[in-house]
């Protein structure tokens, strides 16, 4: 996922554990573990990645695990290896077969049929 322009990006490698609050202006790609709060424009949780705490982002792509709170203002994609537990807020969601969600889902719905 490493693009040529890495300005404003956060990459957490496998095995790395970060604790605290992080504000990322662009892409956050997580292969390790984050405990705490993460806010980024785009969040990618890789298959080996785990986030325990609060995740906020425009688009969030989960191949790993997110526990506690997730808020996606644009699109949330849970891949086949992904697992999200806790309170989930989203505008648009896609779950691939094999992906899991447990907890409360809330739509930030502008249109309701």
């Amino acid at each position, binding site marked *: 996922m490493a693009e040529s322009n890495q300005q404003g990006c956060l990459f957490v490698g496998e095995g790395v554990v970060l604790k605290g609050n992080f504000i990322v202006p662009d892409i956050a790609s997580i292969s390790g573990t984050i405990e705490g709060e993460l806010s980024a424009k785009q969040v990618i949780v890789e298959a080996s990645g785990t986030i325990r705490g609060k995740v906020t982002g425009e688009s969030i792509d989960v191949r790993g695990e997110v526990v506690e709170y997730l808020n996606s203002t644009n699109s949330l994609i849970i891949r086949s290896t992904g697992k999200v537990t806790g309170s989930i807020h989203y505008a648009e*969601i*896609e779950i691939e077969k094999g992906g*899991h969600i*447990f907890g*409360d*889902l809330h739509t930030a719905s502008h249109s309701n049929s």
Partner: protein
Amino acid sequence: MFSKKHPELIIEDATDNLTEDLPGAIAEVLDTAEGVNSPTLASRTPRKPSIISEGFEFVGTITSEGTLNIAGVVKGSITAKSVLIDVEGRVEGELTTDMLMVKGVVVGDVKCQELNVGPRAFMDGTVAYQNIHIQRGGRVAGKFTKN
């Protein structure tokens, strides 16, 4: 709105509705509704799907060992092997099934093994599932748990 506690009573109401209120609507639900009391139901698995057509509203309990296609409205509780809720379809109440494909609207308690939510579907309520697949654009709200 409707009572889940007296399904027998509702079945009678619903049967009245079928014959009197909506004579034009096509409903193959009658045979499945009769089948509730039939002991041979488990032994024979109907191959043809039971259909609740568009514009048809059913209030009561549906039990089927086969497939159920819902393009109309069902208020009450549904137990079936496989349920398809079409784009125009709407289910309010309890829904227990192995395979559930939602293209329309489901509001209530859902228990299923395989859940597939289509791109324009809307689900709200308590959902217990084994496997889930939500296509992009599908909207789900409520509590999600694993079976």
